[in-house]
């Protein structure tokens, strides 16, 4: 199960954070700080997995942004690594050539996409098309 998903830039600014387990605010800040510290200085050649407390963080870097998923220790690392990539592709498709600024200004939309992608800590939809269509329907209602 996914515990949380974080989008952070190299400076450690959180661009998006979604928690699937209840945490205190102070704890969330601590988690964000620690995860950033864990992933930011890793060599690109290294594994994309880091142990984090009693879980593991699967991260992937896209330009200046780190996408980090915290999952259970028994979960399949590569599968989650791929799902990060899928998420980025969906974002890229939705914002047509996504950049960090898109995420900054439209973070609420990123959250909506994420809600279509992951629900209750599980991947619920891996079809890019389905998610984009759903988002289109929502946009129409604006």
């Amino acid at each position, binding site marked *: 199960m996914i515990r949380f998903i974080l989008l952070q*830039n190299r400076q450690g600014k959180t661009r998006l954070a*979604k928690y699937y387990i209840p945490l205190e605010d102070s704890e969330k800040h601590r988690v964000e700080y620690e995860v950033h510290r864990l992933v930011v200085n890793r060599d690109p*050649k*290294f594994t994309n997995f*880091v142990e984090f407390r009693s879980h593991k963080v699967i991260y992937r870097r896209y330009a*200046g942004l780190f996408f980090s998923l915290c999952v259970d220790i028994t979960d399949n690392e590569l*599968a989650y690594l791929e799902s990060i990539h899928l998420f980025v592709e969906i974002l890229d498709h939705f914002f047509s050539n996504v950049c960090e600024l898109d995420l900054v*200004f439209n973070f609420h939309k990123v959250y909506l996409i994420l809600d279509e992608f992951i629900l209750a800590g599980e991947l*619920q939809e891996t*079809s890019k098309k389905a998610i984009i269509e759903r988002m289109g329907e929502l946009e129409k209602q604006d």
Partner: protein
Amino acid sequence: MAQSHHSKEFLDLIKSIGESKSKSEEDNIILSEIRTLKRLLSKPDIPQRKLKELIIRLIYVQMLGHDASFGHIHAVKITHHANISLKRTGYLAVTLLLDQDHDLIILIVNTIQKYLKSDNYLVVCAALNAMCRLINDETIPAVLGQVVELLNHPKEAVRKKTVMALHRFYQRAPSSVVHLLTNFRKRLCDNDPGVMGATLCPLFDLITIDVSSYKDLVVSFVNILKQIAERRLPKSYDYHQMRLPSFSENYTCVTQIKLLKILASLGSGDKRASEQMYTIIGDIMRKCDSTSNIGNAVLYESICCATSIHPNSKLLASAADAISKFLKSDSHNLKYLGIDILGRLIKINPEIAEQHELAVIDCLEDPDDTLKRKTFELLYKMKKSSNVEVIVERMIDYMINLSDNHYKTEIASRCVELAEQFAPSNQWFIQTMNKVFEHAGDLINIKVAHNLMRLIAEGFGEDDADADSQLRSSAVESHLRIVGEPKLPSAFLQLICWVFGEYGTADGKYSATYITGKLCDVAEAHATDDTVKAYTISALMKIYTFEMAAGRKVDMLPECQSFIAELLASNSTDLQQRAYELQAVIKLDPQTVANVMPMDASCEDIEIEKNLGFLNGYVQEAFEKGAQPYIPESERSGTETAGNYRGQEHHEASTHALRFEAYELPKPVVPTISTPVTVANSNELVPVREPYYPSEVHRPTSVVSSGRDAGSAELKLRLDGVQRKWGRPTYPSTTSSTYVPDINKSHDGATLRDVVGSANPKLQDVTYNVKRQQPEVPPEKRKLAASLFGGASKSDKKAPSAATKGSKAKSHSSNKSAQHSRSNSADVITSKTASQLLPDLLDLGETSVSRMEMVDPFKQLEDLIDSDKTPAHGLVGVDVPKAPDMTYADMMSGVETPLTTSGEGLLSVASQKDMH
């Protein structure tokens, strides 16, 4: 496309945040934004678009780590809005701003109920999304009915989210949906593969908990897996695949992985179920596209599955092939998986690791920490006596430079475990442990130190006294070398002090003066650590008493004297107590001292014959003289059916309930609860009659019958005892001993003595005292019980090492209680009756143990209120004033470092565009 929706204000806000140079500048911007939002949100009639943006700005404020609670109610309000876009924004806001236990959740439940009925499936989806995040145990019943209906919704997206929501309910409050679990099975046959895939999540959870009731699904799972692998999928699925091949590929893989996980737990240890899976797992392994990440993910998962089900040689062979592919790969990710699988395979086939030696060593030396740790995990699994030295050495080297306390703890405890299991020699063992303690002492559970103490005391199990004393000497010597080092962890110092105290002078190599000098240095260097000081003073006492027992004169070093003087005035009662004990003990004559503090007796077992069988004769005599039998509490409130053996258990159960109520009602007279039969009898009969039966029943002796005769005559008396049962203040020793076992002992010691002598007719009672329900036992009985226990040990005392040999794995309680007994007996001596006690001194130690038992009822009551308390509390208290858990908790809290963001650079516009 994106920016167009926002007002200039919002864009400016984000821009200024991006351009701010420092954390305080950012904070100022946000604070003024908060003021603006507060003002704007409280206005009536905000235009819809504006309102939506305000809510989004609110989320932004919270995301930057500021308190947005002033806006929570607005976010909740907006979920009621008619406009669907606004409503969705509202839901988004509440899911991000609130958590499941927030007070406002109850307001949201109302709207959720309404929107679950909506015709617009997007609204239903929004409600389901919000529900997954926000529903809690209390609100589940409010929506459950509607949610279950949605399982048949025509839109597959809704069905899927419904399944997920039910899964969430199950995680949160299993009991609330336990009657709905069959729905998950049904949804497995949903014609939309997405819904089917979602169903696998809850099923996986259910299967992990209870494998056996889902064995029938093996066939279905295998079939689904086959369909996916052979791409024979339902229509809608093909549709996806044709349009977006790579992603539906992705999708099948996610489902495959889930299915393989499920099969792994279903097939584990079940040959028949496993046989059904072999073909399909083999197929998947073969067909996997090993050039893509997701293909390797499936391959990895199928190997995991193959290693956890009943082994099949063909599958394992292809698994071994895959390992070499993974390990040879350049990708660290694949190497990592290779090491992981190797760790799994090694359990089935230990030889397999040898082929990959070099690759494993490479991974071990890789600068990538994750890979390194995984490899250590593998090494740990590969442990055997021939390689343990190398493995542990590696682990320790790595551990020394670690800054991550969480992992350091883990690796340290692994080192300890390996060393304990496979140590090739005593010296090596002691040295390894010293290293571990030196570098990670504060992270290790204090129990490890206790275990080590016991190990040193008991030796390695062989009946080889030489080897044992050699072990001890080498421990003393190595500790003497290390003790001067600065900054040793507390646990290690405790260990050192203990070893010095027990064995510092044992082999005659070092003089008492030398050792005590070292001890004083330790205490001086760690003046703030009370636990270490306690260990130090205990060690001093041991050394002095050993010296006295050996007939030498004790010359206390001036620094020892001042140390003792300091402790005599210490704020800690524990330290004070120890200091006084020490003072008292060294004033005694050598022979007494030798009895009080026997040499190398920390492992002596102290046995208690709990049912005091040896007193039966005495009891019977008392009965014949017309004494009254003891009536355990449980029998005091009902049951005429004395001879009923079954009644015993029944009583046991009802006692608990009764006792719980007894707190509120002063009299334990609740006849209806225990036996309906007695209801007819008047109330006053009840407390009087029942007493002695059930307990007597299982006592085989003739005491039983005589007890009954005598009992019925004087029933009235028992009532007093009953009413006084909660009179806690009368037994100060009981309560205090739980926490500070030593405090009252000296007084008790004296009183207990007196009671032993006096013939009390209620001996029978004592037996039951021990086992349960003391509360209503009058004080004098209590003392009697305690003193009897002291007497009891006289006959039971074991010859020193015989019982303990080879019992390494036993908990350290025996060790503790022995020490306990020492300090105890020391107390006793300080009381005036000292000289006459001599033969019994050690036995009195047992009174303390028995008193622990007596504490039990209170403990039990406490447990009723606070189930967290551990009953063993008191035992550990003697040498370790801080409970071990405490230390552990401290250690764990140390894992987290405080958050300091001020140093972080702020986002500059330049870096924002990095992604291009």
